[in-house]
């Protein structure tokens, strides 16, 4: 942390939220709060693009301070929500490419340069995300499965020998394994059904039971990128899945629509842009082919 640019009394860093093509509405920006400790949201012009940023105090946001704060759950949450507010504020007029939480630059100039040097890629992403939203779908094993099975050996009053016990135990284990296999298969079926209405899908790691607060494991944690034109069909498919009872071994939860965070990225190593301008199959025709559907669809 050195060489901060000349600024007001307290040294500030520039926290960047998102890239847009059209500048967000000024009044909307003014009404939004990014990080509570920082200044108002503002827009930097970077080539043909806009970058929504906020000045934040270096004392709180330099590497050390931030690392320490983000290790505190309460601060991590506040920071994540502040970031989300900044991204939302940028979103008002057209697509946005969200930057990762806590993307910090030493000054406006470096922030602008970072964007202009990747303008083609960002442009392609903006095209790809336009008129699309993200939906978070999580599939859990149904809560009843194993527990119900566990209580079911009760009719075995006559069978009290060790062998009977072992066979009951192994039968229970088999039941559990069967149930798990069924749930997995159903989760995959749900995913396959939903992909029919999505432009792309990305699997996040399933969240732990501690995070979800459920006893049943999370089997799938998928983000779908859905065209606005397909949204109704997508949500209808979700409702159908929940209602028609064809997937009794799983429970499907959804949140959305989200700004398409999970699809605002290029794969693997972003630093390759330095020379290769990212993946050839993707950026070459970024202007002509905004619908490269394969991009995020991996699992």
């Amino acid at each position, binding site marked *: 942390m050195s060489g901060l640019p000349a600024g007001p009394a307290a040294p500030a*860093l520039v926290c960047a939220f998102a*890239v847009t093509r059209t500048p967000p509405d000024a009044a909307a920006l003014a*009404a939004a709060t990014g990080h509570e400790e920082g200044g108002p949201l503002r827009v930097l012009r970077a080539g043909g693009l806009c970058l929504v940023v906020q000045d934040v105090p270096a004392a709180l946001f330099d*590497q050390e301070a*931030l*690392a320490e704060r*983000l*290790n*505190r*759950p309460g601060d991590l949450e506040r920071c*994540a*929500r502040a*970031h*989300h*507010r900044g991204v*939302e504020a940028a*979103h*008002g007029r057209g697509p946005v490419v*969200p*930057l*990762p*939480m806590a*993307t*910090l*630059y*030493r000054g406006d100039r*470096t922030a602008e340069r*970072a*964007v202009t*040097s*990747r303008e083609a*890629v960002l442009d392609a992403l903006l095209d790809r995300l336009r008129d699309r*939203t*993200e939906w*978070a779908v999580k599939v859990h094993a149904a809560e009843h499965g194993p527990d119900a099975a566990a209580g079911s050996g009760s009719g075995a009053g006559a069978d009290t020998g060790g062998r009977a016990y072992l066979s009951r135990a192994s039968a229970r284990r088999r039941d559990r394994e069967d149930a798990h296999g069924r749930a997995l298969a159903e989760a995959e079926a749900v995913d396959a059904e939903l992909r029919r209405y999505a432009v792309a899908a*990305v699997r*996040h*790691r399933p*969240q*732990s039971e*501690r*995070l*979800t607060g459920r006893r049943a494991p999370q089997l799938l944690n998928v*983000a779908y990128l859905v065209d606005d034109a397909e949204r109704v069909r997508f949500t209808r498919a*979700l*409702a159908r899945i929940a209602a028609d009872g064809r997937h009794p071994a799983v429970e499907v*939860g*959804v*949140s*959305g*629509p*989200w700004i398409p*965070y*999970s699809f*605002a*990225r*290029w794969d693997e190593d*972003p*630093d390759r*842009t330095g020379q290769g301008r990212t993946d050839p199959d993707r950026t070459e025709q970024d202007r002509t082919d905004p619908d490269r559907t394969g991009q995020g669809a991996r699992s």
Partner: protein
Amino acid sequence: MTGPDPRTPGPAPVPWDGPEPYAPIGVPLVDLLDRVLATGVVVSGDLVLAIADVPLVRISLHALLSSVNERVPAPWPDSGPL
């Protein structure tokens, strides 16, 4: 905080959640963390600070989780969220 965005024309991209399908109740934190930590374009070339790097994120998640239950390892033990 993150209620429906009155500025957005058309359907506002407000995350919904809940047992009641599609009932808006604000932004679910776990889903939000999946998103803000795992994703976004890393424009790292001119970054002064390495905040966006994975190691920090991993530390944070550890902290988050240990507050929930310290015996439990992070759900993204090594590579961070995908």
